């Protein structure tokens, strides 16, 4: 019997605001313990939350970019539970009435498009961090650092539309890229500003009803999400095939062991006693504000990939790589505009130098110039690499470096023919062997010419000239 998996993903994205969602403390990462705190985010008596407009703006932009419907009225609720990293003993979140609902993201897999539904997008505050003092198990105390308390989070919940780990990975990457394009989240999974939990169940193919689901947590990279999903799906199928049943539970991904394990300890019966937060009035968002923000939405990754591929005639795969960063894609387009040669070469260069480009250490002209010089044969591929590296290191114009270092190559057909004649005349035995069929000797002749020209001959032309002369 064949099984299929049913997967829904819940993403928590930290919004890239300067200040927290309900107070004026910094959201900066890596501050000394409790440095970014105030009476409001440490839950002192009598303090009150006031909503950060930017956080709402970011959520609206995300909603628009994912075709969600922004609700004209949404409500902040309190999720009540006790934990030392949660100062008020409730998290302000949205529950019954979220900010946005009913959207989708399209992902392309093997030439076909899959539409993954988005159930809801809502705003909430992050909790602090509990450090377990002493690495040893016997430590008697834990330490609370409340810097992260009230850092704005946006939760994006997908429909259970995902069927394979690969689709899950593609959805997450596309969602991350969208958020980064919108500049609402830095998308950094390792630092925890883009976190993902998964709901996974399996069912016999053809069955409509969902199976019992397990919730997966603790997956801190795209690769880990895919691996955890793969493992969990296999585990559930094997369990059922062995006559067992899946238990509804929360499981943690152990990346080192490559397995999911049940969350330790008694699963406390969660009763969060949600109710509307009386300290925050309902969030009213009028259509005019949404429309105003709609105008600020840039070209999104899906559209950009399609356009780059068709406009520049580059492979879709290259377009995807270029579009993984809005800056990189813009850079590519600027380079292609600066020199209208073969965009495929420009694309390759951009992909090769992605890191430096994203770090702002290369100009589009640099890439345009090396691509042009290569196409005219002025420099070799090797020289091109050397030149770009030097440009990154020194910041000098690449053509100035080229001339200073004498990295131009001989692409003058007449000059190369004269040298080839000389080499052929000087190595009659090799010429004879070559003509007798040992064509592998071509590289010997190329080497000789390179030696004569101190490496400055255009290798492609050298080959052409030699082949013509050696017959």
């Amino acid at each position, binding site marked *: 019997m064949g099984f299929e998996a049913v997967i829904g993903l819940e993403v928590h994205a930290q919004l890239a605001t300067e200040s927290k969602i309900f107070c004026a403390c910094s959201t900066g990462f890596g501050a000394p313990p409790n440095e970014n705190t105030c009476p409001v985010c440490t839950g002192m008596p009598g303090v009150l939350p006031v909503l950060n407009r930017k956080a709402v703006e970011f959520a609206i932009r995300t909603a628009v970019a994912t075709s969600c419907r922004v609700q004209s009225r949404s409500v902040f609720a309190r999720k009540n539970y006790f934990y030392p990293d949660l100062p008020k003993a409730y998290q302000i979140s949205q529950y019954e009435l979220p900010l946005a609902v009913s959207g989708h993201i399209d992902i392309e897999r093997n030439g076909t498009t899959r539409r993954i539904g988005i159930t809801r997008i809502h705003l909430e505050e992050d909790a602090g961090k509990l450090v377990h003092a002493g690495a040893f198990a016997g430590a008697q105390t834990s330490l609370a650092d409340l810097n992260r308390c009230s850092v704005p989070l946006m939760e994006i919940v997908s429909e259970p539309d995902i069927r394979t780990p690969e689709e899950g990975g593609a959805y997450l990457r596309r969602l991350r890229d969208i958020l980064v394009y919108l500049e609402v989240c830095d998308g950094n999974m390792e630092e925890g500003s883009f976190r993902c939990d998964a709901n996974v169940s399996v069912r016999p193919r053809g069955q409509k009803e969902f199976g019992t689901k397990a919730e997966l947590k603790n997956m801190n990279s795209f690769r880990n999400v895919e691996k955890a999903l793969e493992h969990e799906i296999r585990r559930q199928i094997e369990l059922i095939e062995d006559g067992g049943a899946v238990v509804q539970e929360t499981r943690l991904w152990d990346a080192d062991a490559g397995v999911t394990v049940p969350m330790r300890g008694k699963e406390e019966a969660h009763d969060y006693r949600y109710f509307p937060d009386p300290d925050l009035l309902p*969030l009213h968002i009028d259509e005019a504000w949404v429309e105003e923000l709609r105008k600020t939405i840039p070209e999104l990754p899906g559209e950009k990939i399609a356009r780059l591929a068709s406009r520049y005639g580059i492979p879709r795969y290259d377009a995807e790589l270029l579009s993984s960063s809005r800056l990189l894609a813009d850079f590519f387009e600027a380079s292609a505009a600066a020199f209208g040669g073969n965009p495929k070469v420009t694309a390759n260069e951009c992909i090769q130098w992605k890191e430096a480009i994203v770090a702002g250490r290369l100009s589009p002209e640099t890439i345009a110039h090396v691509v042009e010089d290569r196409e005219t044969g002025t420099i070799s591929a090797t020289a091109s690499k050397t030149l770009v590296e030097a440009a990154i290191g020194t910041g000098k114009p690449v053509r100035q470096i080229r001339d200073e270092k004498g990295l131009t190559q001989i692409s003058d057909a007449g000059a190369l023919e004269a040298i080839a004649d000389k080499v052929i005349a000087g190595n009659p035995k090799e010429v004879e062997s070559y003509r007798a069929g040992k064509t592998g000797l071509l590289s010997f002749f190329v080497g000789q010419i390179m030696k004569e020209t101190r490496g400055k001959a255009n290798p492609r032309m050298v080959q052409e000239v030699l082949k013509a002369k050696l017959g």
Partner: protein
Amino acid sequence: MAITREEVLHVARLARLALSSDEADRMREQLGDILAYIRQLDRLDTSGVVPTSHAVETGTPYRDDSVHPFGEKEEILKNAPDREDDFFRVPRIIED
């Protein structure tokens, strides 16, 4: 509206309130009386009535996204019943 001792203890656990045995008994009695009184609301037909969740009808106001450090971290931390350097210190979570 009877409430059982188990329910009292469950609610006390949710609310993180350690109750003595006497307290739990008293609470069961008093809560029972109060809840019974409160349930007079059941007599009232509220179908179609919109709930009032907030005392004010307008939308929530906003603040601008600018950082104003509180700057008196020690004034917060000095209230801590237990601390280690600039952390709040709490007993370890014991799993049972």
